[in-house]
């Protein structure tokens, strides 16, 4: 890209500059659109309840305070106790889902990528089709199923359902990775006497670590942000995950906007940090399946 732009420099400056300025204005607009709500969330979260409810608003908080954060993260008072428990529940459910999703998706994706068993295409698309259906369709029957299995009001019900909506995406992402690992590596291993399973476990799996990381991030973020199943399957207050917990809590305290914004911020921190740290894998994985290099 850099070399191309150097070559282009002497030619057709005017036309290119016009487009480049359009691009810059567009980017500025998109950045404002994206960032203003997030900045406003942060600014509101460090205001007092009184300062947030003013007109015209305090564009910059005159007396910044961390009171909302202290309230949410203090295990001594009841709000903090609830919030920390929701946080822990979310973490537990998301981590369990992630581990299970990777364990189940890795062999399946490998098989879809490498083996040529009859019905492979059908099964693969059947798995993908799951992504098309909204949670709502499955809610009532799954609710009954969970009642039969005795899983209502347990985190097991969430892990099982999150697994199903995480799996298709995980399999699809991982298949993209396996497709791009040269098969010659396994063939060489087979010639050297490895069994097919050994070749998969010892040769291919280490190479697909970036794909596994990406898949894990997606499963984690999906589970962390899930709302509708958690809202339906869990009724006991001490079981709730963050999205549902926050909703329940703030349907009772409708005017505590600094608290709500602080809670939204804390809820976003784990996933945003995860995304920023592992960005490379994250972006690559999503596009591997859709774009062939």
């Amino acid at each position, binding site marked *: 890209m850099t070399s191309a732009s150097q070559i282009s420099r002497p030619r057709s400056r005017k*036309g290119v500059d016009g487009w480049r300025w359009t691009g810059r204005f567009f980017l500025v607009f998109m950045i404002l659109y994206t960032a203003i709500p997030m900045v406003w969330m942060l600014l509101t979260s460090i205001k007092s309840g009184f300062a947030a409810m003013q007109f015209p608003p305090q564009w910059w908080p005159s007396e910044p305070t961390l009171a909302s954060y202290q309230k949410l993260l203090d295990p001594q008072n009841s709000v903090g106790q609830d919030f920390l428990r929701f946080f822990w529940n979310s973490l537990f459910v998301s981590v369990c889902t992630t581990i299970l999703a990777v364990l189940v998706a890795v062999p399946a994706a490998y098989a879809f990528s490498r083996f040529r068993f009859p019905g492979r295409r059908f099964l693969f698309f059947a798995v993908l089709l799951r992504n098309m259906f909204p949670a709502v369709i499955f809610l009532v029957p799954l609710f009954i199923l969970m009642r039969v299995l005795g899983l209502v009001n347990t985190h097991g019900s969430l892990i099982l359902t999150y697994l*199903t909506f995480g799996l298709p995406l995980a399999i699809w992402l991982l298949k993209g990775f396996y497709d791009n690992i040269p*098969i010659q590596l396994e063939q060489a291993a087979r010639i050297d006497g490895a069994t097919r399973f050994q070749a998969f476990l010892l040769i291919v799996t280490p190479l697909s670590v970036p794909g596994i990381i990406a898949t894990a991030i997606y499963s984690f973020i999906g589970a962390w942000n899930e709302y509708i199943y958690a809202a339906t399957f869990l009724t006991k207050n001490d079981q709730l995950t963050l999205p549902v917990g926050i909703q329940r809590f703030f349907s009772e305290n409708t005017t505590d906007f600094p608290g709500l914004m602080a809670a939204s911020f804390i809820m976003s921190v784990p996933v945003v940090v995860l995304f920023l740290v592992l960005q490379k894998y994250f972006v690559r994985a999503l596009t591997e399946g859709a774009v062939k290099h």
Partner: protein
Amino acid sequence: MTTVAGHAGLSRKHFVVQPSLLQQMWTSRADYLYVLPAIVVMLVVIAYPIYYTIDLSFFKTPPGLQLRDKIFVGVDNYTSILSSEVFWRVTLNTVIWTVASTLIAFVLGFGSALALHRDFAGRAVLRAILIIPWVISAVAASYIWKWMYHSDFGLIGAVLVQLGIVDTQPNFIDNIYSVLPSLIVVNIWREFPFAMIMMMAGLQTVPEQLLRAARVDGASAWQRFWHITLPHMAGVSTVTILLLAVANFNSFIIPWIMTGGGPSNASHIWITHIYELAFGRQRWGVAAAYSVLLFIILMSLGYFYVRALSANEKKEQGA
């Protein structure tokens, strides 16, 4: 490409004699073990619910969901849906919501990808900022925007008043005319990054030599975009638009948290309506019938989705 090589390498024995399907399945029985866990989970949590929903849609089930007391009512649930006025209102909302969200998110995403394609200082930072809305929870996004739209202390209204565009704080989400567009803005905010990522990857596949050759031949920036970049992006664009359309058709959290479908159904879309019918009003049969209709619509969308994906796969194998 590698898959074709793998085909020849791993299962050459299949081509010696043409074996029957059962023989083939038997030879590759070990292959199924790899996909078995995934298939079992899928069957339990997908096939069973689908069967159940269809079954439930022909019955009237009491509010407490006591399945023993359900009464067979034939297609009554379906006729009552199609003859209700709310159904048409909700359907119109869903169409507006899906089409507007999908197209605008796609255009903004594609535009951002093009604007970020050329390398410049700070590009990685800008890209990261633009992707964040897609990562954070939709519940958090709903609350952030609900606060932005607040009818007394919301930022957007306050800015409009300060700039002298309006006299008093407008009420964005308690107004039957502005509620749907306001929610679409939120939805696009969360979704355009997905289109952006996909299109950024797509742009990498446009051959640089071709663009350079066109430039040497005197093609303008627009001509290069229109005749070279765009045709190369057709495959990615189809997949992206389909995925966006399905996601938008299925969205629930943003309208549910922000308005609950109100005021007077102005922001109800199919999914929120089904949820309210089932878990709010406990009309299980009607909700199930709605789900079956939704299912049929999605299956036809899914047909195009699979076709687009297989087209991609064929192209890859042909290459």
